């Protein structure tokens, strides 16, 4: 199975070199693509010099759009699966093989910070927010998920086909909404415990106001997805596939 590691990155010049260096020990850099989401620093040139492929957005479109580009890149270049790996040094490379192995029997595997076996430390408020979001998402996925917003995940061949056609682009909604979207296409989602590093760069948003807004927004997106039908592009792709089988 050909696996692509996709790294969405925005202004990560300070850490991207180090991230790619540690990544190279776990995965060949020829099968790594950095999706530079409109960085204004040297992120793209550093990544290219390190030996990874770089796709640059001319303007900033958000993580969801960056992953959408990565899935299209994967289909175009004949990959079977895509691992999302953050460019800020939060994710650990030793879990990459575990994600690939866990793909056997599932379409999407999520690396969970809160699953049994993980040791991620966070405040009680943050944890309860994550628990609420994960609880609601679990209802959709019909399986117990403890960390729906984790950006450390792998999408197998069937999920890749769906995500290359349509991947959610709304701010902060992509991680959760993609799970619901996949579930509605009868794809299976599971999770494995992972450890994560403290963020090397950037400051996580901690204010109560932002956290509330974030939770409300994700719950709104989840509620919305209950009334939403299949995205038109996904439906067309499925009709094409059925037509091909019939022909």
């Amino acid at each position: 199975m050909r696996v692509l590691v996709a790294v969405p990155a925005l202004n990560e010049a300070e850490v991207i070199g180090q991230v790619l260096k540690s990544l190279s020990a776990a995965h060949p850099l020829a099968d790594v693509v950095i999706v530079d989401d409109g960085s204004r620093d040297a992120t793209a040139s550093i990544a290219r010099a390190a030996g990874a492929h770089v796709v640059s957005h001319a303007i900033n479109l958000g993580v969801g759009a960056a992953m959408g580009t990565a899935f299209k890149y994967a289909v175009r270049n004949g990959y079977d699966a895509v691992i999302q790996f953050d460019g800020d040094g939060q994710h650990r490379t030793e879990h990459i093989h575990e994600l690939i192995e866990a793909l056997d029997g599932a379409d999407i595997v999520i690396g969970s910070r809160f699953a049994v076996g993980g040791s991620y430390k966070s405040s009680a408020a943050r944890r309860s927010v994550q628990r609420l979001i994960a609880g609601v998402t679990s209802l959709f996925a019909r399986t117990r998920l403890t960390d729906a917003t984790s950006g450390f995940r792998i999408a197998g061949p069937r999920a890749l086909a769906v995500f290359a056609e349509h991947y959610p682009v709304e701010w902060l909604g992509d991680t959760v909404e993609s799970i619901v979207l996949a579930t509605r296409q009868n794809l299976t989602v599971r999770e494995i415990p992972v450890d994560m590093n403290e963020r090397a760069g950037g400051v996580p948003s901690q204010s109560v106001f932002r956290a509330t807004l974030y939770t409300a927004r994700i719950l709104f997106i989840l509620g919305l997805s209950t009334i939403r039908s299949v995205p038109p592009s996904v439906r067309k792709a499925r009709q094409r596939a059925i037509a091909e089988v019939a022909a």
Partner: protein
Amino acid sequence: MTPQILAIVMAVVLLVAVIVLLRSYVLPEKYAVLWLIAAVAAIVLSAWPGLLEAVSRFFGIASAINLLFVGAFFVMFLLLMQITLELARTRDELRRAVQRLALDVEKASRDNDN
């Protein structure tokens, strides 16, 4: 048919239109919140005229219909302002994307010549 029923029907049509557009992925979430609030407010105000009267009395406005006009005018102003700002931002992004594309195509053709 009383005018109130007409008002309620129009408000419900607005809400259904918003939901149908949301459902088919035409209307993005970002703008949906505003339109959902507007549609629900229209339904509440048309189904419960007493509310408008009460709020008018609170502000000391003699005729309730004036409050409706002022309120609607203000909401329209905010919506238009939001659209104008979005349009300005989108134009700016489009310009940058096209410039970037032009430079990259030129670079690619030069690389092919070598």
